[in-house]
């Protein structure tokens, strides 16, 4: 009786490798997942080479010719590169400030007792369910009265605040999951509050931090309405606004629109492709700590 080959699986043990034909359904399923994930991106890229008529008449057909005219028009019609740069700056700043400041609050909510703590936490968390349209007017007036309208700090402040409830929820849960004994050990060893927070607690909640940062980043990166209302000049406007340049009530240029979307998303995809290992690791760090 011949033995089937054994292959290593991580460091937890060995398992028997199944024959190729038995693995075909798994491969097909994975292929389907890849296609579902890639199709929208490929469709956008393909559409950027098609004419308006082709896009509207036969949405899933392949381009008949590959011309970069759409890209030329996209750059000519909208200040997409400028807006892209603004988006990078505003999103990075707001994400960093959001995660840094809100995690401090989350730590306090997770670890300390004070009168009205649950009420305060509920109020802060509930702000997540207020509709954007209801926030529009008061936010506009506050930002204007602070003299921050049409400014980079104004938009950073708003995005930081908009993402506060979600980050607070994620980070409080993350801090609460860290055993109190680790903190106590740090205090016994002579560590102060700040040292314990930055050197002990934050490293142990990297998973939560990464999740909160990813959510805050995506929300800020895609946000449209506040960027529209709170800004006037090209110097502070963000990427989502640039995509509105290609359709109006009686006119449209879908070729340029898809070219613009391609230019807007490809850098993010490339960055993720390059750093995917780090991103994936950061998302699971802390998941097995307890």
């Amino acid at each position, binding site marked *: 009786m011949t033995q089937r080959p054994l292959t290593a699986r991580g460091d937890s043990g060995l398992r028997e490798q199944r024959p190729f034909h038995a693995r075909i359904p798994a491969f097909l399923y994975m292929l389907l997942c890849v296609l579902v994930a890639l199709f929208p991106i490929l469709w956008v890229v393909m559409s950027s080479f098609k*004419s308006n008529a082709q896009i509207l008449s036969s949405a899933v057909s392949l381009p008949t010719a590959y011309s970069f005219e759409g890209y030329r028009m996209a750059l000519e019609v909208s200040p997409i590169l400028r807006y892209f740069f603004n988006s990078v700056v505003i999103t990075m700043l707001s994400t960093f400030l959001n995660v840094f400041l809100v995690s401090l609050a989350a730590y306090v909510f997770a670890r300390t007792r004070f009168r009205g703590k649950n009420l305060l936490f509920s109020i802060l968390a509930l702000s997540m369910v207020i509709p954007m349209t209801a926030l529009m*007017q008061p936010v506009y007036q506050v930002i*204007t009265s602070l003299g921050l309208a049409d400014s980079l700090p104004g938009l950073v402040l708003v995005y930081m605040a908009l993402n506060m409830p979600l980050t607070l929820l994620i980070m409080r849960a993350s801090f609460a999951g860290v055993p109190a004994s680790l903190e106590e050990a740090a205090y016994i060893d002579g560590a102060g509050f700040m040292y314990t927070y930055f050197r002990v607690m934050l490293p142990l909640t990297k998973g939560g931090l990464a999740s909160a940062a990813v959510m805050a980043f995506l929300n800020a990166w895609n946000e449209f309405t506040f960027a529209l209302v709170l800004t*006037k000049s090209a110097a502070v406007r963000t990427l989502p606004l640039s995509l509105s340049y*290609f359709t109006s*009530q009686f006119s449209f240029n879908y070729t340029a629109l898809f070219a613009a979307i391609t230019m807007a998303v490809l850098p993010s995809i490339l960055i993720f492709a390059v750093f995917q290992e780090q991103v994936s690791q950061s998302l699971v760090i802390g998941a097995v700590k307890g």
Partner: protein
Amino acid sequence: MKRILSLLLAVVMVLGLGSALAEIKLDYPTFQVGVNTAAPVIAQLVEEFNALHAGQVVIQVEEIPGDANYIDKIKVLLNAKDLPPVIYGAGYNLLDLALASDLLVDLTPYVEADPEWQAMYNDKALEVNSRDGKIYGSSAEGNTIGYFYNKELFEQAGIAGPAKTWDEFFAQLDTLKAAGITPLSMDTADSAWVTSLWMGALIATSGEAGQAFMAQMMPDDYNTPEVIGALEKIQKMFQEYTTFDAVGGKYENAANAFLSGQTAMIANGPWMIGDFSDTTKAPEGFADKVGVAIYPEGFAYDEPIQGYLVTRQQDSAVEQAAVEMVKYFTGVHAQTVALEKQGMLPASTQVEITQTAKDNFPLLAEFVVALEGAVIRSATTQATMYPNLLDIMSAELPNLASGAMTPEQFAQALTEGAAKNK
């Protein structure tokens, strides 16, 4: 001490003089940017105005791409009572919204003091831009609209030309359908512009009551025989004579169906003429196949669109500069630029249809001739209805099209929507 005081006084005077002589900045938010057909017109007018008033007034354009985005932002600014000095009412009836908050400057004395400007207003322009005998706006666009038809497809179906009556029109639809040609481009999304043009034409030509309905500013009651009758025909058009993607489709889908030769007719204004020769949207030579007509029973949309409005500002110098801007943007020169660059028919009869415009847009010349036969004229339904009804149109038209809603129920939905503005 005296020297210091004198020096301080001199500094204050210089600063004061400086601020008095400072260039006035006019923030002007506009959606007429990007692919908007009016973008080159506005760019030229801004450049010319700034050059003309160099050192005194400068227009600072705030680009708000997308018509809906513009309206959303203006509404926020309006609620905050922080409107820019000049806004464009366009087809969105911003005049009444701004006037309700007492944020508009009465232009009457300025218009009356300038015979040239006063002459730009015909009765319709005066009506659309005035409230309670006071002028608040100045129009630049005529909003003259008929429909386009594909001459080649008409010929294939054996149709000689545009219908004179609705009976003939519906017979043509059957003829086209029998020849395997989809007769109409229609839409439901984004306020259903194309569909609402057919609907308004049907209402306006249903008799005196229909004309009276179309003449109303912000009608409250859509439960009328003429509206319900028009909706019955619209329902039939959706169910029998249009493309499968009309329900849920936007203007782009309707336009593409016509531009690709899939449908035989589309209701739209002359600003579409440029698209017929745009080879990224239509096949080479398509422009030669297109004809233009007024609607059956001699109807055409022909009423100036609500124009530029000047809003109240703390600094009267800014208001004055804003009035100057509006005067320039709605003058003969500005309307001629729009005519020749965009194919937009002027709001004022003082503006001549130039040979350059006819050369640039041959169909426009054809349309101007066709317009002479129009015996019934009105504004579009979208220009006169409460703004919230545009959303109701988009939301409920698919139900009307599918038969899930009767014309009576649709009319009731519009009436209930209108009542929310009380």
